[in-house]
């Protein structure tokens, strides 16, 4: 078992899947000899050759539409969007074709592709390199949408995504790419797309987060436990579509209080969906309104002010206190 960063863990998942299934191919801008601009695909073109690790022309729609074609023919493409902020140039290929082909063809053709894309702020990057717009993909029927939070679940979930018979969008929190290491087993770990994980058990308050927001949420949970004497239960929503309402609702029925944390702008974000569902399923158990901690409804600021945009532990603690003392 090795201690890996998320970048190394994703690289391991790609390498192992390519070794064991020759139908798995990687394609994107700079994924070959440059090893990807985050080095996620480093060393793969040397091992698997240019037919399976494909440096493509600079064209997001091209990469995705071409991948859909390969998938229709029975391959398992893993296209990379260099940043989620550039994926909109190929958004229509995901919406109009990848998510619909099984349905449109009454099950005859399927699109088992996994679209990887780094998302989110916190690395002082340029405009279009830092945003978090998960709702675009989570809102789309016919698509699965996975957001790992650390090296270990990134590896396990990516393997599950590549093996999944349906198209998966795989959001990688770039702030967490190299922020910490985790032990990642050498052998395959079974993972399932869908179920949320309770990563910190507790009974005083439910905290829900995913991707890049998990570390700050865990930090806030520790402080709340110390300062408020209430043990928060922290849920890592590793899949936004399909969303595991059951685990979240089950926890809130126990705690009666909930804080949902998202990096995306507040309005229409997944936190709103989770809050709406909680008031349906746990209305009589709620002791306080469901609190949402989110980015404001603005474009991700240029990097000098990105910290003021990004939800951090302080804001999560503030919301948690409000929920506890309501």
């Amino acid at each position, binding site marked *: 078992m090795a201690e890996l960063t998320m970048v190394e863990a994703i690289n391991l998942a790609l390498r192992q899947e390519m070794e064991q299934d020759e139908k798995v191919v990687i394609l994107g801008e700079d994924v070959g000899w440059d090893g990807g601009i985050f080095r996620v695909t480093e060393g793969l073109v040397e091992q698997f050759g240019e037919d399976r690790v494909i440096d493509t022309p600079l064209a997001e729609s*091209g990469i995705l539409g071409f991948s859909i*074609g390969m998938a229709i023919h029975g391959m398992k493409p893993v296209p990379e969007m260099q940043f989620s902020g550039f994926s909109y140039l190929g958004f229509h290929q995901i919406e109009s074709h990848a998510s619909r082909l099984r349905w449109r063809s009454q099950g005859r053709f399927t699109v088992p592709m996994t679209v990887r894309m780094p998302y989110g702020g916190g690395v002082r990057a340029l405009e279009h390199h830092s945003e978090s717009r998960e709702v675009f993909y989570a809102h789309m029927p016919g698509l699965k949408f996975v957001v790992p939070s650390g090296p270990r679940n990134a590896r396990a979930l990516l393997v599950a995504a590549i093996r999944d018979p349906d198209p998966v969008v795989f959001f990688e929190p770039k702030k967490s790419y190299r922020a910490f290491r985790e032990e990642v087993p050498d052998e395959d770990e079974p993972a399932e797309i869908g179920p949320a994980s309770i990563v910190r058990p507790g009974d005083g308050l439910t905290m829900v987060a995913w991707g890049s927001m998990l570390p700050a949420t865990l930090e806030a949970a520790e402080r709340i436990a110390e300062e408020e004497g209430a043990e928060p239960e922290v849920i890592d929503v590793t899949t936004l579509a399909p969303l595991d309402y059951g685990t979240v609702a089950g926890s809130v029925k126990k705690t009666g209080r909930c804080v949902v944390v998202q990096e995306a702008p507040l309005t229409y974000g997944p936190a709103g969906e989770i809050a709406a569902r909680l008031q349906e399923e746990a209305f009589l158990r709620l002791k306080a309104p469901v609190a949402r901690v989110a980015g404001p409804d603005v474009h991700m600021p240029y990097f000098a002010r990105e910290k003021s945009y990004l939800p951090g532990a302080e804001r999560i603690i503030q919301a948690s206190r409000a929920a506890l003392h309501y």
Partner: protein
Amino acid sequence: MPLTETGPDSKIEYLSILNEDGELDKELAPQFTDDLLLKGYRTMLLARRFDERRLKLQRSGRIGTFAPVNGQEAAQVGTISALREDDWFVPSYRETAANFWRGTNPADMLVFDAGYNEGIVIPEGARNLPNSVPVGTQMLQAAGIAYAARLEGTGEVAMTYFGDGATSQGDFHEALNFASVFDCPVVFVCQNNQYAISVPRARQTRSQTLAQKALAYGMDGIQVDGNDIFACFAAADDAVRRARETFRPTLIECVTYRLEMHTTADDPSRYRDEEEVEKWEKRDPIERFGSLLRERGLLDDGSLEDMEAKIAETIDAAWDEAEKRIEKAEGVSAIFDHILEQETHEQVRQKQQMSDGLGGVSGYG
């Protein structure tokens, strides 16, 4: 510094084999059996008559909006017939004649036209993709399919269809670029029918031809008389052979004309004049092909009458079958079918709510 000349080392050819007067260029004419010629003619006529019936069904509210193929039958049957059965057909939304050639059942198409997904029945084993409605997006998929076919060494070719409007889309350019860069055995068939809904070809591009766009991507391009089934076949056959032997893609521009509306939702009299339509009616691909078949003794008034009668029977039977299937298409649970391989918990819950009469209501379940 002196000016030097540079430019493409190939040029765009225009191919015509059977002219407007029904005269055949014997040197260029591909050789076919009589049966194959008649099958091609029958397919074109079936598509034409099928559209006429569909227009009546649409006007009487029995089916929804559709895109008539009228005028483009030669461009479709000529090109698609160059494929083998194991090749891939990647259409847009007007490829009725090509679909019939590839085995699509008219009854299925009518169930689809009536608004039911269940009408998308791809013939067993056929590599036919379903209609693609967003303009031009499907060309990239054809390139990707062809890439996979080359990588897997299957020897298959993909052929994809689109109109003149699609050549303005970014995806058209990305598809040609990817196909050429990656040696994809794909044939791009542009049916230049002169209008993108109401906007004429001259408003799509100032390029002299659409075929010449191939040169920018380092591939072969050819312009053909799209109302001449032999020219369409010859160009496609050549392109398919090149794709199979060298993996190189080709762009074929079939110069043709849509004699009807774009879809049943628009009125072509608002954007084009009758004179122009009449000029193109004289180039009708079915008339032209028919006169050659008459000259060869393969068709006469009597046999044409028989063929028309059989086609009418086929269409009657297709509508009878479609109506029965539409009547039986009860309930709405089918809307949950084939979204993902396995239904999500949420879809199961929502389906149950809808069947309980609580569709769209969440919160009191």
